[in-house]
């Protein structure tokens, strides 16, 4: 995970958060360690035990008024202790004018001091949300990500097995391409994986014999998406006669992507197998499973009912039909 600095936050999200830098410009290179912000109520009151010094500090109405009410000497002492720490930055919300001691000490210790226009709670939640997003772990993987019937399908496989062709076929049938070849994956809230394209090559495809094509221009904006959750991983592989492929589909396989288990299918490819249709079917079947219906399991249950259920009923039925047919005769 690359380091994230206060200047990155200011440059990328300064406008969204309504930030105004008022002191400590030299400290913009400070590192943000954790995606957390806190209001330093207790430390301002003098209780420094277990103080989380790596968190961003947010001064709201109460903190500013508390500082105004304390003696100037105490104010300087406590702020000095607070700002000597590796705190990344200090934010004052509601466009409050920070006490001059805070201004002076931020300059002295080179801690960036910002003023924000939002209310304190709104600001903290927005800031935490943005930072969590920036801090979420990510990786790059090889494959194509396509949204098929609303299901995010990551198509993987060795080079030249036909990933891009399969993705192109899906796009042609009205599904949406997120990225081909290079898919960036981000883990959101530790549970969900989100895939998106990588800057320059986003919505581009490379097809052997044709070259690089721009899907967004060729098929229109309706055929592309910027990001999508990864719900399913399908691995395309060249048909191997010695390998036994899943014939029933009762067992669900999972692959581990960044610590998240994602349903996984191995799809053998050989001439005459319509990969696009098969991928659509896998996606549809996945949707059906999520809706609570598992075709393979339902079929097995029906079969078990017939093979292990009360035999008399079954024989009775057979006799019944038999007698009917005889009576007709």
């Amino acid at each position, binding site marked *: 995970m*690359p380091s994230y600095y206060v200047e990155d936050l200011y440059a990328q999200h300064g406008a969204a958060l309504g930030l105004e830098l008022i002191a400590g410009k030299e400290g913009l290179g400070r590192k943000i360690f954790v995606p957390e912000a806190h209001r330093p109520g207790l430390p301002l009151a003098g209780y420094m035990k277990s103080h989380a010094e790596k968190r961003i500090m947010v001064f709201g109405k109460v903190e500013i008024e508390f500082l105004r009410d304390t003696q100037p000497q105490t104010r300087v002492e406590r702020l000095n202790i607070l700002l000597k720490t590796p705190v990344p930055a200090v934010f004052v919300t509601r466009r409050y004018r920070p006490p001059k001691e805070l201004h002076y000490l931020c300059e002295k210790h080179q801690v960036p001091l910002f003023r924000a226009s939002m209310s304190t709670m709104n600001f903290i939640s927005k800031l935490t949300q943005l930072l969590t997003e920036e801090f979420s772990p990510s990786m*790059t993987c*090889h494959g194509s990500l396509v949204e098929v019937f609303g299901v995010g399908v990551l198509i993987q496989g060795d*080079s030249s097995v036909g990933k891009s062709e399969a993705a192109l076929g899906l796009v042609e049938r009205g599904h949406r391409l997120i990225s*081909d*070849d*290079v898919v960036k994956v981000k883990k959101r809230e530790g549970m969900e994986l989100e895939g998106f394209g*990588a*800057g*320059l*090559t986003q919505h*581009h*495809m*490379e097809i052997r014999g044709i070259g*690089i094509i721009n899907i967004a221009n060729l098929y229109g904006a309706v055929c592309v998406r910027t990001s999508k959750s990864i719900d399913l991983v399908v691995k395309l592989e060249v048909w191997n006669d010695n390998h036994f492929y899943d014939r029933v589909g009762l067992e669900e396989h999972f692959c581990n992507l960044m610590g998240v288990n994602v349903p996984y299918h191995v799809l053998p490819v050989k001439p005459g197998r319509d990969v696009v249709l098969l991928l659509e079917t896998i996606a549809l079947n996945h949707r059906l499973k999520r809706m609570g219906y598992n075709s393979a399991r339902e079929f097995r249950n029906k079969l078990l009912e017939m093979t292990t259920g009360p035999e008399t009923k079954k024989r009775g039925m057979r006799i019944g039909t038999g007698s009917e047919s005889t009576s007709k005769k």
Partner: protein
Amino acid sequence: MELVQKVRVKNKMGLHTRPATAIVKLLQGCKCDVNFTYKKETINAKSILSILMLAARRNTTITINVKGADAPETMEKLIEAFETKFGE
């Protein structure tokens, strides 16, 4: 067998389409996995779009990671190609 080596991009215009094509052509048919790492981004070097995505500039360093049976020969060929600026 796994080999790791750092190389410098010597081409004036960085790793643009022609060098990228040369790399993909060179790796065609080789039996090992080849990855490039550039600015903390690791990609599959057998895919031209992945290489182009890196947008590596001149005088930057790329870490090559080769894993597989014919790793030494592949690595040697790759380094030579980078050194000779892919014939440019």
